[in-house]
């Protein structure tokens, strides 16, 4: 492309001309500064080749003319008169050199782009790993931990970099270190994914359950280049699981125990029954009462319940609204076993009273009182007193109720129980250490 002035040439240079053929005279024209400027601001890869068609031999050239030539940086001189082939070869080699410069430029641009992508991808990686709730880490193929995200340092409270290498193992509960170490070594050796639950030291000093996982990343040759791992805080889940296990074990125990009690109650009822019809009625009423007792224990989460509640609930089916019962005493906590035993005993006493005692006539009353007698060992006393009922006769045979009360009830309270068949009314008393209520 022909241009007439150095200014125009400078513009062409800016647009990255391939090579320039110029006469020496033209170099002294206007716009020499614009040309120098354009050449000076070329990118690092670029050096436009000049072919200068010289006037004279080098010896006759003035200093100014020589400097003008030097300012071109990358110039060859061709003396005139010109040989056509000389010029063609010179232009060709200048263009080839220029072509190489462009190749270098492309390569540099590619490298730069890759660098940029790498930088962005790393920034993205950090942004992601620091935004999740998990602790993230990476390790070299030999197991050397070389990266942890902020969450790890935030959780553990240790200084950045202090857990690099193998120091992470020291953050684990000492009972979990060996298993975690063993599994990690196994994964490093086999390339199998790593997964382990362990207790990790929190910055508070407490240990919290976490789930540790890691996966290897392979190169094209199938070799592991890095391990990426995470730790997830599963403390709440773990505790809930443990609690559920405890709860299930406790439930299982209670159900077994209840079935054993039912078993005893049925076998005892049948031993003393006059006929199957009576036995059926007794068994059904006793099972119903046990079921009610369990309802209350469920409501009070199986641990303990209140004495007043136990007494009221046990007597509820026997109350007619005529004010036959009166009771007074402090509302004390009572353990589940004692509550069940007392419920059964009260049920037996009330059933007996309905058949033969104070509740079998229109005038009879039952007074229930209990109190805590304070002494060296606080003593719990409980009394059941029937009055205004029919004359009471000593029974000829001991049924389940009386045997349960006299032999078993006291055992549940670690105390003494007594049934008295006084002729003016049956009395029952239980005395036990106060601690026996919740043993």
């Amino acid at each position, binding site marked *: 492309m022909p241009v007439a002035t150095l200014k125009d040439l400078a513009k062409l240079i800016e647009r990255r001309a391939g090579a320039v053929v110029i006469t020496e005279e033209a170099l002294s024209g206007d716009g020499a500064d614009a040309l120098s400027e354009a050449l000076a601001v070329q990118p690092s890869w670029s050096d436009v080749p000049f072919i200068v068609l010289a006037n004279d031999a080098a010896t006759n050239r003035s200093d100014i003319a020589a400097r003008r030539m030097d300012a071109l940086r990358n110039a060859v001189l061709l003396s005139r008169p010109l040989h056509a082939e000389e010029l063609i070869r010179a232009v060709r080699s200048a263009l080839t050199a220029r072509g190489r410069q462009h190749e270098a430029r492309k390569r540099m641009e590619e490298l730069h782009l890759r660098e940029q992508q790498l930088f962005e991808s790393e920034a993205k990686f950090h942004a992601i790993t620091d935004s999740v709730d998990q602790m993230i880490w990476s390790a070299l193929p030999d197991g050397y931990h070389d990266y942890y995200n902020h969450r790890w340092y935030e959780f553990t409270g240790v200084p950045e970099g202090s857990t690099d290498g193998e120091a992470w193992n020291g953050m684990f509960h000492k009972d979990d270190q060996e298993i975690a170490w063993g599994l990690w070594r196994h994964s490093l050796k086999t390339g199998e994914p790593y997964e382990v639950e362990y207790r990790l030291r929190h910055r508070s000093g407490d240990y919290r359950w976490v789930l540790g996982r890691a996966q290897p990343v392979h190169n094209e040759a199938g070799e592991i280049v890095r391990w990426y791992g995470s730790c997830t805080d599963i403390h709440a889940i773990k505790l809930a699981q443990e609690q559920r296990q405890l709860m299930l074990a406790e439930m299982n125990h209670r159900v*077994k*125990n209840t079935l054993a009690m039912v078993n*005893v*109650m049925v076998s005892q009822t049948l031993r003393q029954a006059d006929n199957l019809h009576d036995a059926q009625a007794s068994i059904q009423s006793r099972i119903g009462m046990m079921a009610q007792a369990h309802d209350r224990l469920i409501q009070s989460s199986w641990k303990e319940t209140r004495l007043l509640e136990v007494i009221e609930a046990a007597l509820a089916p026997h109350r007619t609204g005529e004010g036959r019962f009166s009771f007074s005493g402090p509302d004390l906590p009572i353990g589940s076993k004692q509550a069940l035993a007392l419920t059964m005993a009260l049920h037996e006493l009330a059933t007996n009273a309905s058949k033969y005692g104070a509740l079998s006539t229109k005038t009879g009353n039952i007074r229930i009182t209990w109190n805590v007698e304070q002494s060296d060992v606080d003593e719990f006393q409980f009394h059941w007193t029937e009055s205004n009922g029919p004359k009471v006769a000593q029974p000829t045979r001991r049924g389940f109720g009386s045997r*349960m009360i006299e*032999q078993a*009830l006291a055992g549940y309270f670690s105390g003494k129980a007594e049934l008295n068949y006084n002729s003016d009314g049956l009395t029952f008393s239980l005395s036990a250490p106060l601690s026996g209520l919740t043993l």
Partner: protein
Amino acid sequence: MTAEKSRLPSVLVVEDEPLIRMDAVDMIEDAGFKVYEAASADAAIALLEQHSDIGIIFTDIDMPGSMDGLKLAAYVRDRWPPVAIVIASGIVEVGKDTMPEGSIFFAKPYATSHITKALQDIAATMG
């Protein structure tokens, strides 16, 4: 009756649950045995020390106190080797190796007839 009873070994029932203990005592007495009862391992050992006529111990596993039923069974096997051991528990997964050799296990709740049969079989081998 008295003559027959004297030929049978006495049975020691160890059970912390009073109602279940009461029923176990009834059941074994009905089968013709003389029965001693204890609510804990410590009480059971005291009875064994006093009554040499005890030939069979019938114990629960899950009991409060210094020893549970398995520890008691091991102790009895060690100190009174001729005493036969019958274990009953609601815990079903009791390892055979945790019980003394020759002891018999029953899951709770148990059938009366199974227990009395086992006790009678033991009594028969004791002559």
